[in-house]
């Protein structure tokens, strides 16, 4: 398949929104892949972190927002610590999650969490999971 690139997606509202929410310059990423190389979650991801950023650069809104990756990212800040360009990848992932959550689409519906899990996991896990996965 040929992916068409035009000013429509490279100068899109989506890109602006990601930059605004994350306060990061998406064009600062020079695609070195160090974030992907160190990401502890990558085996569960369908698109690697550096590719997510690449797709944002290309304006690939659908692909990025439908990826598993943004939900698997656990904000561990390994990439943030090592990125040679100082790109806060965790903030970009958060921006992508927020764009979805703010459309009132929960990734994890609080009501769907099994009673057993609720009684088992520590509060801190529940609070943070709901902060990350529901709007």
């Amino acid at each position, binding site marked *: 398949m040929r992916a068409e690139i035009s000013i429509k997606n490279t100068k899109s509202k989506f890109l602006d929104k990601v930059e*605004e929410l994350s306060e990061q310059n998406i064009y600062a990423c020079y695609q070195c892949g160090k974030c992907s190389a160190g990401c502890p979650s990558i085996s569960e991801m369908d698109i690697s972190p550096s590719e997510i950023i690449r797709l944002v650069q290309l304006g690939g809104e659908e692909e990025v927002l439908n990826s598993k990756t943004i939900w*698997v990212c656990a*904000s561990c800040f390994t990439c943030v610590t090592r990125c040679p360009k100082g790109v806060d990848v965790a903030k970009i992932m958060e921006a992508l999650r927020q764009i979805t959550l703010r459309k009132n689409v929960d990734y994890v519906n609080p009501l769907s969490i099994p009673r057993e899990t609720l009684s088992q996991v520590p509060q*801190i896990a529940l609070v943070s999971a709901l902060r990350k996965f529901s709007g």
Partner: protein
Amino acid sequence: MLLLVLSSIGEKAVRNSTKEFAQLTHLPIIPFTHLLDLMKGVKMKISYFPGCTLKTMAKNFEDSALASASSLGIEMVELQRWNCCGTVYSLTSDDLIHQLAPIRDLIRVEEQKDNRVVTLCSMCYNTLKRANKLVQEDKEKLDKLNDLMYREDVKYDGKVKVLHLLEILKNEIGFEQIARKVKIPLKGLKVAPYYGCLLLRPPEVGIDDPENPTILENLLESTGAEVIDYPYKTECCGSYNTVANVDLVVERAYNILRSAINQGAEAIVLSCPLCGFNLDNRQKEIKEKFSDFKNIPIFYFTQLLALSLGLDEKVCRFELNFVDPRPLLESKHLIGGV
């Protein structure tokens, strides 16, 4: 031990040169008022923010921490009122509202006429510290938050210092001093420290070198334990994914534990109740998935500290640990009527 006394009323020049001297010699600076307290046998007091999990699942962390601190001369005074730290720290630019919770907790510290607050849970530490940093660096956001909290009596001024207990042990008590106070050296106990993420990252709020931290190692060495190094000590355990993606956490926890075990660790030592849950309680699921896996006890650092300081074993609340650590401790003659 030599102490440097920093008087808050002394000449500025004297204070500065004292500071320089302290940096050169790595001597701890003890504020004058604290020294007075020490002389009177009064403990160093510091406001303490527990956070939700320390009051419930991680009671073993809290009890052992309070008791150890106390025996080292630190009185951790729980905030009279506190609320959720707001976990996790908000990463988007426009949801200032999520900074209300942590900043409100810092107002509580000021209400208690203190300018420092100590935490135990890594997540609370990270959230409070980052929120604090945000408003310290952005006056506009601070003002907006104060406006939103117009019903508070105290306006937050950004002056509170957020600390983790490990920092106080290192910088204000000193590991050498701790070593001197150790009554039951943890000889022969092979422990692997686990830092996880939020004590170290992002680096601007971390308590140690983000790649090669040593603070837990140094503390554990001062208790007489044998410290094991392994490459996964700063790798993420999967964090809150434990709620909706257990498989992921199981996989990660397994890798971390296996790496430590391969290096000869008999136990893991950590400082976060969420990491604790993932590495300890999730061993049930790990065992189901990886048949070769053998359980390994997980300690909060304060449990081992309390033990080495010769405190009553009860403060460690070992019964709350998922993998029972007592057989290991007994085998090393560290508990059970030595």
